[in-house]
């Protein structure tokens, strides 16, 4: 079990995604780069209020090639999609408490990019999102949403 938002955790998310994609009959080809931007909302202890954490995910032939934390926007990196939401929202998604599709539908996660492609690949997108939300056993060193009240409680939790 890896701590949320650590390299070990990304590896586990990646493996979970790829295990599910492996069961798909016809995963889409091509390459995609997706940026996930999480901004501090004063609720999540994992993203300080006023700061942001950015993650880059690379999909190759339907599989997650890598998933890593990055600093801001790199103009040299061509993005296909950008998902943006608050720390609390993303924590809840990773904890399986919030459904990622509902979050996008309700605008708590904003999605930018070629929506036509995304709609046409709905099956694949759903598989990746489900793996992210429910495919990994996560440990929460600073508390699991709805979070422990104090650091001590968090450690105990």
């Amino acid at each position, binding site marked *: 079990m890896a701590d949320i938002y650590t390299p070990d955790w990304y590896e586990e998310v990646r493996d979970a995604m790829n295990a599910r994609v492996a069961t798909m009959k016809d995963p889409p080809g091509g390459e995609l780069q997706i940026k996930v931007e999480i901004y501090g909302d004063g609720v999540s202890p994992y993203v300080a209020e006023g700061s942001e954490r950015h993650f880059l995910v690379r999909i190759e032939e339907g599989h997650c090639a890598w998933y890593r934390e990055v600093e801001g926007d790199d103009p040299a990196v061509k*993005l296909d999609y950008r998902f943006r939401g608050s720390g609390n929202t993303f924590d809840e998604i990773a904890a399986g408490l919030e459904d990622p*599709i509902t979050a996008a539908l309700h605008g*708590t996660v904003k999605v930018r990019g070629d929506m036509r492609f995304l709609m*046409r690949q709905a099956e694949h997108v759903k598989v990746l999102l489900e793996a992210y939300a429910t495919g990994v056993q996560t440990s929460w060193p600073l508390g699991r949403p709805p979070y422990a009240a104090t650091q001590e409680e968090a450690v105990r939790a």
Partner: protein
Amino acid sequence: MRDSYDAIIVGAGHNGLTLGAYLARSGLEVLVLERRHEEGGGLCTEELTLSGFLHNVHANYHTFVDLAPPVHDLDVRGHGVEYVRPEVQMASIYGDGTALTVHTDLDKTCASIARFSEEDAETFRRLYVEAHGYVDLLLSTLMYQPPMSVKELTRALATFGVEDRSEFLSVKLRRETINQFLDQHFTHPKVKAHLAFHGAVCAYTNDVPGLAIGFPLLVGKIDNWHLCIGGSHRLAHALWRDLAQHGGVMVSDADVRAILVDGNRAVGVRLADGTEVVARKLVASTVSVEQTFLEFLEPSTVPEELRGRIKNDVKHKDWTLFSVHLAMSTLPEYSAAEFDPDVNRAWVVNLGYGSLEELNADFAAARAGQLPEPKPNAAVNSLYDPTDAPPGCATGLLRQFAPFAIAGGGEGEWESLGRWYGHRCIEAWRSHAPNLTDDVILDWVPYTPLEIAQKFPNMVRGDWMMGEVSLANMLDQRPLPELGQYRTPVEALYMAGSTQHPHGFITFAPAYNALQVIAEDLGIDTWWRQV
């Protein structure tokens, strides 16, 4: 004007100018040709009554501000456009003196609805919050990209399980009318009438099957109605400035009569005075399909079947708008202000529709060529734009749902009916705002459906949407399946105006979507797609 350009665009409405500006910013040499004396098309502001009174002859309500990518990409505000979002966006005044007001403040709107039905107020709040959440997503999925088919969309919505995650969006809406949607979710006839009226002003007629699918989206932006300070034409001017700043050229009084074809490729245009201009890379038409394929192109260059389908299958809107433009020395004071004082600050006012049945009856009448008993909607821009009339005065705009051709006499009848019907519309306004006596109305002019068609030949039969607004005529089926992706059977000829998905209105979307297709075909760097 030189004798050759990379891209020639026919029509300098907001779609032609938008496409031109993007292409010019992309380094193409662009020429936009406009038959009228000025750019803008439906973005047209004229002193129709008295000097100093600015009347928006066509587009008055800008409902896609900050939702349409070109507003930012082309920096229209940087080019001098100033928008105001009226605090009291809209109102309905009913026959019994009650009124409902829609505000930019959701709580106030719900409080107003609750005076008719608390249950409806709660439903409206849930609908608004839900729809407001996905308005960006739906707009980028449905409007600001070349269209998918209904089948593809339905499949994706089913895969994502949208129906289980949403109270109001459902695949079955693609078969339902807005009336059905309202009957399923709302209870009070006046609340339903107001919401249906709002849809109708957006050209989404409440009794047309399939339009329910777009209704949540309409509600998601129900409070996004903006007024362009100094008149809608300011936006046209801003788009033209952007075009010009990037080396593009707009030529007015340039009536395109022919699109020149070599082999099967569009290579230029011919104007009414015989001038020919060469298009090195593309010609884009933003006028009607009838003009483009039946008038501009030699019959031999258009597949016979397509010509036949354009003659027989292209559907136009089956009702249009009759307008009255007024110069007034005062603002209207509504009797219904006793019930809700905010009606006096409402930008757009529905004068009388109080049930779905009344709307149904008037659309049925208009379709049969009959003039409805006037229940116009009234807009007073001066409430929010102090520059649109001399100090202390106000402009007024009445719009009535109406037929293009009058039963028994045809559209020519409007020549004699215009002032009479206009007078009746003013009487209807006065019945709700008794202070609008003859002496405070300094001048007024009717603007009839016939005049729409005369001013803009691309608005065939006064079709202000340049094609019926129905699900069957949206997405990749608009205006015909073979033209639904902005390309045409003639190589290098594109359709980029309101004949295309999604439809008319100041959406910028047809041009923006045609741009994506042109960029793909020509290998243009898509600098505007900032993920």
